[in-house]
């Protein structure tokens, strides 16, 4: 009788305790692997760490689980992928790199993060290559790996990261460059303290202030120099006035001739008039933050986004269609289960005080029919307004957006 069958029979009272006692006990390895893959969100990372503490027998167990039982590597889930290199077993490390090298592998960020914690000098160039990855959450740990390795041959690549559209990547590059003797990179971190931007009511600027302050306080070789700055408050708040002055003086002392910041790294405040937004997070295709403004401006990115002008009337037409489409959804706003991919629509007519949010999400497997056809139609219209021509990481933006939408909710209809 299978364990499942006994458990079912026990639950309806057909077998008693003596039959349950007959069941073989789950080994600690099996228990921790199960919890790492399928436990509650808060338990999974802790269980994965404990799995590592079981040492070589657990490493052997994982190799068997993957190779002999022929389970797909991705079925380990992000938490186990994130600790595979911690076992110190070359076979598991090789599997982590195999995952990183596969653009269709869903947990590449976790795999790189795990590898970064124990980066070896022989791997330095692979981490330099990862700085060019389309997924920001892969680029970010690659920087930390190069820091750990003190791989100063990567200086130029790290300097390029100061122009990255993702603020996490820029902050980490600034931290490493500062610690490697380029104090003017602190300018990027101080600029983050000046941010007060938001994303449809979400305080992205405040979050950046907290994260930058954490680096400035704890992770710089220059020592703790934040002078009581309160990340909760904007840079120009009266309670931050004194700290802001002292931080500026400190910065000038470190870097008498501050470099001009690229546009993407410059602090900005609240951008008025954004009425439609699409936030796409694909574990395979990366993240996209797209906004349409009532003045026919399209912007991509958070913080200080890159802006493009759209033909007059474009956004009014999109809003008209959005209003029609959303009224057909009968108040439903959430589809699917989270895990790997999500796309969120933000709809914010000027007549209401906050945006309505509609979310579609899924795990690593394709889910047929996930996106309601009405939203598919709207997303297709929105995607058609995304410019294809950009610079840097925005080259081929429209194609990238369509690929990400396809990865999350399936093909868009041809409108």
């Amino acid at each position, binding site marked *: 009788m299978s364990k499942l069958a006994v458990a079912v029979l026990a639950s309806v009272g057909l077998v008693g305790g003596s039959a349950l006692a007959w069941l073989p006990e789950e080994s600690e390895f099996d228990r921790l692997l199960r919890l790492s893959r399928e436990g509650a*969100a808060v338990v*999974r*990372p*802790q269980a994965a760490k404990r799995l590592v503490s079981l040492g070589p027998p657990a490493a052997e167990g994982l190799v068997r689980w993957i190779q002999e039982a022929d389970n797909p590597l991705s079925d380990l889930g*992000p938490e186990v992928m994130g600790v595979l290199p911690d076992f110190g077993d070359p076979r598991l490390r090789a599997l982590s790199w195999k995952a990183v090298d596969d653009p269709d592998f869903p947990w590449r960020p976790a795999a790189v993060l795990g590898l970064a914690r124990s980066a070896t000098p022989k791997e330095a160039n692979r981490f330099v290559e990862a700085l060019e990855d389309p997924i920001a959450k892969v680029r970010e740990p690659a920087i930390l790996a190069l820091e750990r390795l003190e791989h100063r041959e990567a200086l130029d690549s790290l300097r390029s990261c100061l122009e990255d559209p993702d603020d996490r990547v820029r902050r980490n590059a600034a931290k490493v460059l500062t610690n490697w003797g380029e104090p003017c990179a602190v300018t990027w971190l101080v600029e983050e303290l000046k941010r007060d931007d938001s994303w449809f009511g*979400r305080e992205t600027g405040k*979050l950046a202030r907290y994260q930058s302050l954490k680096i400035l306080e704890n992770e710089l070789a220059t020592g703790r120099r934040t002078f009581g700055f309160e990340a909760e408050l904007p840079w120009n708040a009266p309670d931050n006035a004194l700290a802001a002055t002292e931080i500026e003086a400190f910065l000038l002392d470190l870097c008498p001739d501050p470099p001009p910041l690229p546009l993407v790294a410059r602090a900005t405040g609240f951008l008025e008039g954004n009425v439609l937004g699409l936030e796409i997070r694909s574990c395979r295709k990366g993240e996209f933050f797209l906004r349409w403004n009532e003045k026919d401006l399209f912007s991509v990115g958070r913080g200080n986004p890159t802006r493009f002008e759209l033909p007059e009337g474009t956004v009014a037409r999109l809003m008209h269609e959005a209003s029609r489409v959303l009224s057909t959804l009968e108040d439903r706003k959430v589809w699917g289960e989270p895990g790997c991919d*999500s796309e969120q629509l933000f709809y914010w007519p000027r007549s209401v005080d906050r945006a309505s949010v509609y979310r579609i999400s899924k795990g690593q497997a394709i889910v047929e029919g996930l996106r309601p056809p009405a939203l598919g139609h709207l997303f297709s219209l929105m995607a058609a307004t995304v410019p294809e021509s950009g610079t840097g990481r925005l080259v081929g933006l429209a194609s990238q957006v369509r690929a990400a939408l396809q990865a999350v909710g399936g093909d868009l209809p041809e409108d």
Partner: protein
Amino acid sequence: MNRPLLLSVLLPLITAGIAVAASSWVEVNIMELTQFDWEPGGELPDSITALDGESIEIKGYMALDTPEGTTTFRLSYYECGCGNAQPNHFVQVDVDDVVGYRPERLTLRGTLSVGEETEDGFVVSLYRLKAESIE
């Protein structure tokens, strides 16, 4: 009758003392609760342990994996796309009436308890809120 409702009934009737009653909800910034490094067994700052048992008001976002028809969910400072949750990155919320995932920022009032709660040897929460109201 819960406290916010009680206040709304009394507001038109009395003027004096309302500020005292309204301010009895200690406003807690979820960023302050969640922006420090912590390991299981580690100490919490005094300013945070002092909030244990307080009636608080707190703003945040439901975790993405909140199912429909639940009476418990994680509240975090920002709606992240990750399933991975560190105990010091969220407040575990308990409500009386069932709720489902709501993507917008929420304001909650209730009683906060602070300290490690473990199940099966794992820390499952550091902060718990018995919510009386959600807006």
